[in-house]
């Protein structure tokens, strides 16, 4: 209460601060770039303004344009609508002729619109251009270049639009006539120089032409691309949805612009989307690349909060509104606001860096809590408040469950150095009602923040010994981390024990976390594999290491190291593994011998001791396989001779005994004999966890071929591995 009034009471610090702020604001408001020097400049500016206003086509001029168009064309607009549209066009053309931003209607687009949507005949177009050209001459601030650009744009856009409209009519005839000519249609679609595709009744792409594949940077030989997955965001997908809804069987409908991306989510073009409906619910979608005409006008980027990289309130509301517009009648939408009540206090006590860390951690937890749920949106509304739009196809119960989970996850302890911090967020939630806007929904959710029950307990911070990993939240966020390109691969050198030459590298996956930490996640991947959590890590890591192998091959030739990837149990037994490996090797144009898959015994053996199919198939592809866990979780030594193994990996727990003191000779004997056994059933033995020169010497004496461990170097970037290879040495 005191804070609300303190700044009004003279003598208080709050009052002084407010006075300073007010003085600063008034000072700043008077400052800025200098105005035009004198009354003459002001008068000249006004004259230019009046001239611009006068040069805009008056109502009479627009009526003449409309009459010229209507004289030889049957137009789909009423006279009033046509005049309103022509007025908008004229303003845009005037701006472009003067060298200004024409906004949504550059001349080329106006020409296309006349040809495609208004479907004017060439005669009508010629008549109206004969009126537009002298009008352009009257524009005082339009130079010769600007007027030429406008006329050229009009003509170019119109001819392009006519070509597309005629083709669209032919395509429509091919599919809607009593005897549809599907082969002709398919061939015409394929030959079309514009990106285009055909959609089935369920909305999936059934045919895509080469131009579309090239635009989206997808493989020529692969299946049809999922067009929706190549649209940059919800707004772009909404453009496609509107085009499909508005598409008529008797013509082509253009419905706005969208940004398309390549398979990695990188924007590649800005396109105009048009759709044509065929029989049986099929649809054809045409994309017109307008990137060049938009090149000087950058696509607005969403406003992202600097700390959490979440959308700020304006873009959050925009996304919420798009989701509400696109949601079905049966979907239940709820907007939840979460407020960190302790933000000021955390800042005062720990400083702004910790406050930002907490915000990032909370943002990561909220994102993880709703990861994988359809049609959710997360945003940072202000420094203390986050917004989450939740959609549930079934009921409000699902929304409230999600809100409970959000509060629970945000309230989980977090660790800052050796202190444990437990937050106590306030939550408000409002259900979207028919006809309400995103802004109204947010207002109700914010109001609910203050009317809901006080969360139990106050936030606390206490010292805690050690750090416990935030495993459940990391696990939940791992899937999105792959999509957000937050994962990187590091390589641990594997050296030939005889001469110390680096001949291989073991790949490990690292996650660049939002809080700035970089964490190795192979344990998370194993855990996810154990609990059956589906991740796209497998295909991702295979593509990455194969691409790296190709780069090393090009740079180092025959000396390029072989890359070992540790495959967890379920993935190793999955039928999809072999095709994934085959595809990765084929796409990367890499020899199978440059890759080695390291697997636990449960991944290579069936219960009856026979090799699993995958092992056999990998052998057929000549992909080397290494067996892990020998000596610690492998018992079927009788089956070793039946397995097709390139390498057996001696685990670090056993390697550590290779330089055991004489008193522990028995431990050393186990390791030594296992190395000997492994040597007899495979082509090479790799000892992991080599820390000392003595371990290296012993392993070499026992005819282990390869070694890996801190003695030779830890996980490092691929460039460092290449340097080691080129220098002909290991790090140890």
């Amino acid at each position, binding site marked *: 209460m*005191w*804070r*609300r009034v*303190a*700044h009004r009471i003279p003598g208080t*610090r*709050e*009052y*002084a*601060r*407010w006075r*300073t*702020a*007010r*003085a*600063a*604001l*008034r*000072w*700043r*408001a*008077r*400052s*800025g*770039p*200098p*105005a035009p020097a004198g009354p003459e400049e*002001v008068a000249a*500016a*006004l004259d230019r*303004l*009046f001239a*611009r*206003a006068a040069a*805009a086509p008056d109502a009479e001029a627009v009526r003449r344009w409309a009459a010229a168009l209507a004289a030889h064309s049957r137009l789909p607009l009423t006279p009033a609508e046509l005049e309103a549209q022509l007025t908008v066009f004229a303003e845009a053309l005037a701006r472009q002729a003067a060298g*200004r*931003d024409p*906004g949504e209607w550059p001349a080329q687009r106006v020409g296309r619109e006349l040809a495609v949507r208004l479907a004017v005949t060439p005669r009508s177009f010629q008549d109206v251009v004969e009126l537009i050209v002298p009008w352009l001459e009257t524009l005082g601030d339009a130079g010769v270049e600007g007027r030429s650009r406008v006329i050229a744009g009009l003509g170019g856009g119109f001819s392009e639009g006519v070509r597309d409209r005629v083709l669209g009519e032919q395509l429509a005839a091919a599919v809607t006539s009593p005897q549809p000519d599907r082969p002709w249609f398919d061939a015409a679609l394929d030959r079309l120089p514009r990106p285009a595709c055909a959609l089935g009744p369920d909305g999936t792409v059934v045919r895509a032409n080469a131009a579309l594949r090239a635009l989206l940077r997808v493989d020529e030989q692969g299946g049809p691309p999922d067009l929706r997955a190549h649209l940059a965001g919800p707004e772009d997908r909404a453009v496609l949805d509107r085009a499909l809804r508005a598409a008529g069987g008797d013509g082509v409908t253009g419905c706005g612009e969208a940004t398309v991306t390549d398979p990695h989510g990188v924007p590649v073009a800005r396109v105009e989307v048009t759709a044509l409906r065929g029989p049986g619910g099929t649809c054809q979608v045409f994309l017109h690349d307008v990137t060049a005409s938009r090149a000087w*006008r*950058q*696509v*607005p*980027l969403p406003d992202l909060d600097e700390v959490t990289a979440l959308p*700020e*309130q*304006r873009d959050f509301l925009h996304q919420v509104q798009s989701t509400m517009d696109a949601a079905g009648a049966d979907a239940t939408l709820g907007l939840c606001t979460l407020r960190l009540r302790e*933000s*000021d206090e955390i*800042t*005062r006590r720990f*400083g*702004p860096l910790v*406050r930002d860390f907490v915000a990032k951690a909370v943002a990561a937890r909220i994102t993880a809590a709703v990861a994988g749920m359809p049609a959710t949106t997360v945003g940072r509304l*202000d*420094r203390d408040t986050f917004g989450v739009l939740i959609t549930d196809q079934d009921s409000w119960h699902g929304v409230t469950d999600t809100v409970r989970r959000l509060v629970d996850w945000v309230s989980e302890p977090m660790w800052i150095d050796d202190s444990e911090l437990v937050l106590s967020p306030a939550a408000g939630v409002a259900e979207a009602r028919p006809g309400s806007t995103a802004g109204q929904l947010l207002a109700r959710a914010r109001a609910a923040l203050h009317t809901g029950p006080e969360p139990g307990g106050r936030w606390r911070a206490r010292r805690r010994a050690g750090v416990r990993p935030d495993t459940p939240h990391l696990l939940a966020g791992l899937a999105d981390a792959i999509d957000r390109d937050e994962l990187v691969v590091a390589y641990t050198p594997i050296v030939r024990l005889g001469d110390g030459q680096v001949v291989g590298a073991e790949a490990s996956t690292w996650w660049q976390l939002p809080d700035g930490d970089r964490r190795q996640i192979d344990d998370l991947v194993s855990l996810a594999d154990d609990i059956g959590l589906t991740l796209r890590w497998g295909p991702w890591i295979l593509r990455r290491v194969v691409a790296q192998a190709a780069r090393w091959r090009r740079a180092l030739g025959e000396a390029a190291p072989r890359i070992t990837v540790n495959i967890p149990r379920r993935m190793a037994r999955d039928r999809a593994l072999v095709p994934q490996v085959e595809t990765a090797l084929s796409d990367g144009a890499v020899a199978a011998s440059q890759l080695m898959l390291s697997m636990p015994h449960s991944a290579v053996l069936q219960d009856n001791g026979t090799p699993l199919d995958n092992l056999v198939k990998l052998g057929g592809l000549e992909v080397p396989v290494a067996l892990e866990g020998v000596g610690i979780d492998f018992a079927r030594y009788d089956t070793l001779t039946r397995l097709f193994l390139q390498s057996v990996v001696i685990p670090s727990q056993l390697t550590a005994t290779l330089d055991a003191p004489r008193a522990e000779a028995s431990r050393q004997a186990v390791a030594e004999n296992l190395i000997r056994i492994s040597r007899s059933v495979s082509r090479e033995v790799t000892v992991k966890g080599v820390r000392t020169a003595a371990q290296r010497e012993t392993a070499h004496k026992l005819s282990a071929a390869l070694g890996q461990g801190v003695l030779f170097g830890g996980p490092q970037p691929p460039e460092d591995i290449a340097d080691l290879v080129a220098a002909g040495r290991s790090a140890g």
Partner: protein
Amino acid sequence: MTSTPDDEDRAKQEFRQFYGANYDALRRQISWWDPAVDHDEIADDAFLQTWRRWRELDNPRAFVYKAARNGLRNGRRMVGRRASPMDLHEGDAALMARPSDVETRQEFQDALDRVERLPPQLRLAVKLHALGLSKGEIATVLGCGKKTVANYLSEARRRLSGPDPEAGGGSGPGGRQDRGDV
């Protein structure tokens, strides 16, 4: 109803006075909102739109700021036409008349930094209010109610008068040590 030449002249004369009274302030405000855009062009377009609707407008000052705000949204990613050898913010700051003493200058800069850290609607309301717009005019520009504007200004005032969270316990505006005992 068509206008006579006399009506036209009278309107132009009123508009000239309006233009003279507000053009400079609008340009400054636009450059304050975003130093990177071409503030002259946005201001010119805003006044053009205002002139076109001159006879219909009850509050032309509010309308011209609103038009400028819309124009800023469209142009906010465009780089200003004038090439500058300096960083845009430095160049903008260089044009400002400086308070005479160093201490006041620093206090002002700290206070303005705090303004920039306000949420967008509060920030905009505060800036427009500093320029002299009434709450009703600010409501027109922001597209909300007068009561909301009053709340925005009150909340902004409360935040700007509180201790600076970014200072982390150090000196706040005025050079006094903030002991955090609020």
